[in-house]
């Protein structure tokens, strides 16, 4: 043994202690300030109270969305007062009070537990609503594929939700709903497990136990934020609130608070413009949390203006309906219990949105459209019952500013249903709104499920901005303009309608009048062609014009996507319907050809060659050198496929169908409105807008929306005059004359009747016709025609004829021009109309 070793040992020991002392000195003395500040930050929390959400007003200042004061029952999770094992007992008492003493049971928040008990059968119960928009589906995919994809996605989400729920509560993933329920009962001390029996800790029914568990899970979710009270019942009556306050001895930790609640005084009025409030979805929860939302208590604008102006990150005006919450800065301990209040910041109410919507016009439009549905369904319009005339849209816009004066989509919904809970609590109502396809009649189900036709009236769907329907004859305006501007015809060019158009080999279209009455329109010029909606005229014009000139004009009017253009520029969600064009047709057909090539060449989808071929086909630039490595036969095949592809994309007969608004043309009512506005106002394509101005909480102006011209589409005065004359004649002598003849204000318009079946005479079409699955009706109106001020578009699904829609337009004119006092009984306007088309 070496003597020195103990000396070294001692030195090592002392050095270790010196290291500790030095490090302590560094931390506590030198860096003490820095760390103390950090410490403050780490243990302070912000506790926010809901701000007063901004109001949404009509242009006259009538409140469409506002707030009312509401009472909520809250639970403050103070475990010193109520230890964990006693929480279920307190909750049971609350549930019984709300059930027996004060009838506010349905105000309890019981949807945290995604399990339902039906006739003693325990099942998982997740809400999943998948809409077409969520899937970002290609425009050109069949209805059948769409539904399949939606269902697949729905099942996937259901499974993921179930798994996530189990993971959240540390449950084995293989538990069924019943096992999950009882595991949770035991976990949260609502029941004890005794060998293989479960015994509730207090005498209660299974339903009560389930309710207790739902509330208990709410509290559990809040476990790291104990300083925040948990809302366990929303919008209870004043009586309940005071009853709870009185019983504070028996109900420790339970009290009430007052909070603003979103309120829509007019119910479902303008619901698609306003939107509704919803809980943050799982995919967006983190994002809203990072913006300071208390996502368990604060609902978020889901669609419409509520969504667009939710907060400043959502819109370009810097407007926020949400405002800023009142914030309390507190320090908390590691359990989340509040230690002390550091400071408070007052909240800021949300901004007020003043819309361009005119209350009266909107009201007239909504009422008139619903009246039309009723009259169509009862057969009061043309003697035939139209049982499926239950969906439609109205757009009224100022042609000189792009302001939307009314925007109606039916069926509608009452956004108040969502306000309390961020979702619809009543299951029946919820299903009716989220899954309307389940409530079809048997006949309707046949068309929806077997024929895969779009026949479901969807309350949350904005038919005005989203529904893509062929424009029918209303599109003849575009063909007229293109033909006149390209010099295919002059306003005086006469074409003689011969009924059946047989000038193009392979094309067998007839004028509608030939089909219905076996007669012809005789010689027509462009104005007359618009007036009588002569198909023959447009077939002849289109054949002469060709695809290139047609494409040029749909592009000019923004009826086909051009770069990153939006469709109409409106603030709320819209679809961009595409006109038929070579480009669109190529995208539509290419898949068929690529599939054949894949089979023929035996190559996979991700093969570079395939993407090369796709690019060459789409760019119309077939380069044999890029096909090196293929055999002569294969090259030959590709060449012939290419030629077929180009021929199909540019098939002239399809242009003839497109020229009368059939074929692949599909637009939203809003797009149609914008197109007509641009034509009749002399070529200014105004950005459509719903917002007039945004006001600060103190009432001062924050932002004023000025009319904005997106494009200018110049046309010759002769062209303008010719088409305006045509539109006017439609109302005076044409298909809408029964409604507008002798109307005190000169008006113009165009009807459109969009057939669902290409072949009228087929068995299916005949059966569908008998079942009321008939053509959609569209009408676009312009008034006054000599100095256009407004454009109105009305779309009614399965209406049978376009002219039916004109009655709604007339009601709107009456209101707009102040003529409704002269004609108090507007019922008459929907009655029998004899002239067709």
């Amino acid at each position, binding site marked *: *043994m*070496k003597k020195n*070793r*103990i000396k*070294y*040992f*001692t030195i090592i*020991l*002392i050095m*270790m*202690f010196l*290291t*500790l*002392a030095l*490090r*302590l*000195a560094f*931390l*506590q*003395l030198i*860096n*003490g300030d*820095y*760390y*103390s500040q*950090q*410490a*403050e930050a*780490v*243990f302070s929390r912000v506790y926010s109270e809901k701000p007063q959400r901004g109001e949404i007003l009509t242009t006259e200042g009538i409140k469409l969305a506002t707030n009312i004061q509401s009472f909520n029952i809250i639970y403050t999770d103070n475990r*010193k007062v109520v230890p964990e094992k006693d929480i279920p007992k307190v909750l049971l008492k609350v549930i019984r009070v709300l059930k027996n003493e004060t009838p506010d049971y349905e105000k309890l928040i019981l949807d945290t537990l995604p399990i339902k008990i039906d006739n003693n059968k325990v099942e998982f119960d997740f809400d999943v609503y998948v809409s077409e928009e969520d899937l970002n589906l290609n425009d050109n995919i069949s209805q059948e594929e769409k539904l399949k994809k939606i269902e697949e996605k729905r099942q996937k989400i259901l499974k993921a939700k179930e798994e996530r729920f189990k993971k959240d509560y540390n449950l084995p993933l293989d538990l069924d709903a019943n096992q999950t329920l009882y595991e949770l009962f035991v976990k949260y001390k609502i029941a004890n497990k005794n060998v293989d029996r479960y015994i509730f800790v207090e005498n209660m029914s299974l339903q009560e136990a389930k309710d207790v568990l739902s509330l208990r899970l709410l509290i559990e979710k809040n476990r790291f934020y104990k300083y925040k009270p948990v809302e366990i019942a929303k919008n209870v009556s004043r009586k309940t609130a005071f009853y709870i306050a009185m019983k504070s001895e028996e109900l420790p930790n339970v009290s009430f608070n007052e909070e603003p609640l979103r309120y829509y005084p007019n119910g479902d009025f303008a619901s698609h413009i306003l939107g509704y409030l919803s809980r943050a979805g799982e995919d967006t929860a983190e994002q809203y949390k990072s913006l300071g939302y208390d996502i368990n208590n604060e609902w978020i604008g889901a669609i419409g203006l509520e969504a667009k102006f939710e907060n400043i990150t959502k819109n370009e005006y810097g407007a926020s309906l949400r405002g800023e919450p009142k914030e309390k800065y507190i*320090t908390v*301990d*590691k*359990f989340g219990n509040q*230690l002390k209040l550091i400071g408070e910041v007052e909240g800021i109410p949300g901004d007020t949105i003043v819309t361009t919507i005119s209350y009266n016009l909107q009201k007239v439009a909504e009422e008139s459209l619903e009246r039309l549905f009723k009259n169509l369904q009862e057969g009061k319009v043309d003697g035939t019952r139209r049982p499926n005339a239950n969906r439609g849209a109205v757009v009224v816009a100022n042609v000189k500013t792009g302001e939307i004066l009314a925007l109606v989509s039916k069926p509608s919904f009452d956004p108040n249903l969502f306000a309390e809970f961020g979702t619809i609590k009543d299951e029946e109502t919820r299903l009716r709104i989220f899954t309307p396809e389940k409530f079809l009649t048997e006949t309707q189900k046949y068309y929806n499920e077997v024929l895969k036709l779009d026949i479901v009236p969807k309350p949350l769907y904005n038919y005005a901005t989203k529904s893509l329907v062929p424009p029918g004859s209303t599109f003849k305006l575009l063909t007229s303009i293109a033909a006149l501007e390209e010099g295919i015809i002059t306003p005086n060019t006469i074409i003689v309608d011969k009924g059946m158009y047989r000038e193009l080999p392979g094309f067998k279209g007839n004028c509608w009048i030939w089909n219905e009455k076996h007669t012809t329109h005789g010689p027509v010029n462009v104005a007359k062609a618009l007036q009588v909606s002569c198909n023959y005229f447009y077939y002849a014009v289109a054949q002469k014009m060709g695809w290139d000139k047609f494409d040029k004009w749909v592009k000019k009017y923004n009826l086909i996507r051009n770069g990153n253009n939006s469709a109409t520029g409106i603030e709320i969600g819209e679809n961009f319907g595409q006109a038929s064009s070579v480009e669109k047709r190529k995208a539509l057909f290419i898949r068929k050809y690529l599939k054949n090539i894949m089979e023929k060449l035996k190559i996979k989808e991700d093969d570079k060659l395939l993407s090369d071929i796709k690019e060459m086909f789409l760019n119309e630039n077939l380069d044999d050198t890029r096909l090196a490595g293929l055999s002569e036969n294969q090259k030959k095949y590709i060449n012939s496929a290419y030629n077929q592809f180009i021929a199909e994309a540019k098939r002239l007969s399809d242009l003839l169908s497109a020229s009368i608004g059939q074929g692949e043309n599909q637009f939203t009512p809003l797009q149609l409105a914008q197109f007509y506005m641009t034509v009749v106002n002399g070529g200014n394509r105004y950005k459509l807008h719903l917002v007039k101005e945004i006001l600060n909480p103190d009432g001062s102006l924050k932002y004023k929306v000025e009319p904005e011209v997106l494009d200018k589409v110049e046309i010759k005065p002769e062209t303008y005059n010719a088409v305006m004359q045509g539109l006017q004649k439609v109302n005076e002598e044409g298909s809408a004359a029964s409604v507008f003849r002798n109307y005190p204000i000169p008006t113009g318009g165009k009807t459109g009747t969009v057939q669902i079946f290409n072949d009228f005479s087929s068995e299916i079409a005949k059966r569908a016709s008998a079942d009321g699955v008939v053509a959609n009706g569209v009408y676009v109106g312009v008034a006054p025609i000599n100095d256009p001020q407004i454009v109105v578009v009305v779309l009614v699904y399965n209406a049978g004829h376009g002219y039916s829609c004109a009655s709604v337009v007339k009601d709107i004119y009456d209101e707009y021009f102040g003529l409704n006092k002269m004609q108090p009984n507007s019922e008459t306007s929907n009655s029998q109309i004899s002239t067709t088309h």
Partner: protein
Amino acid sequence: MIKINKKLFRYFDWSIFFSMIAICILGITTIMFANNALETGNFRNTIAQFIILLVALVAFVFVITIDYTTIGSYYKIIYVVTNLLIIAVLLFGREVNGAKAWLGIGPFGGQPSEFVKLSIIIGLSKILEDVDEVNKFEVLKRVAIFVLIPMGLIQLQPDLGTNMIIAVIVLGILFVAGLDMKFIYIPVTILAILIPIAWNLNIIKTYQKHRILVFLNPELDRLGAGYNASMAKLAIASGRFFPKSSFADIIQGNTQLSSGKFIPEAHTDFIFAVFAENWGFLGSIILLILYLNILYKSIKISKVAKDKFGQYLVIGIVTMIGFQIFQNIGMDIGLMPITGIPLPFMSYGGTSLLTNVIAIGLILNVSMRRKKINF
């Protein structure tokens, strides 16, 4: 009962004893604050620790009355019993924080791996007592077998922290016994190679890996595994020089960070953080001096021990307590990785306190019997 010769107390080092008692009392008060006992009225841990201290003092008296050479002669029995206890833990033990280390019935029980440390110190000292030259293969082989059996069992729990201490203890004793430095350099080199391999072959558990990674940068993961480390550091740092809070604040549990409100396991592994926040730099240094007093005086005792067994025994214990202090405080202030090693005499935990008090009893035992005693 064995009678204690009063003359024995001539060499009873009272400063070591009182330092130990002082630290124990500081520990109990700190546990009280860490549990926020004055506010919640939950004195369970505080009282338990106090009772264990009393029990430990009884054991302490028992230990000093028996000549340590007598205790040493039972080293084989002690060795076998402690190893059996670990096997029992592995078979019937309860898992706590990812390791099966707790053996007991109801509220009574303990962590036998704590006793293993003492058992190894006694056994190893005994083995080396009769060895003149430690750097012989035969000797080292014997030492290795003796040590690796319990270490292997402990690794099964798994309890890397305890094994780390045992390794340091063995190294400490061998070092003093004159181990050739090459036996220190070579294992260090081998370890440097083996650690990455162990890392990749999952011999180190995931939670241990995570702790090591977070040790390297606790701020990266403040609310995860690094939470404890970073909270502890914040708490200590905000202690400043003088205790930041007034005494009344501390009593009422009003100190910002500690008081058991932010740091989980504040009364066990992170007790120093609570202490340092409450008593500041001044208090921390006083605590370190108390510890150093025990250890420094003990080393002096080892020099005057009557035999080599006594000397190694003291050095082994000093290594054990010294390294635990360094590791535990070092972990709080970001010098060492996070392990579950308690702070001697301070941390809540019966077995640990009992073992350490008995260990001090053994040191004082050596001190008291430094000369041949004539009856």
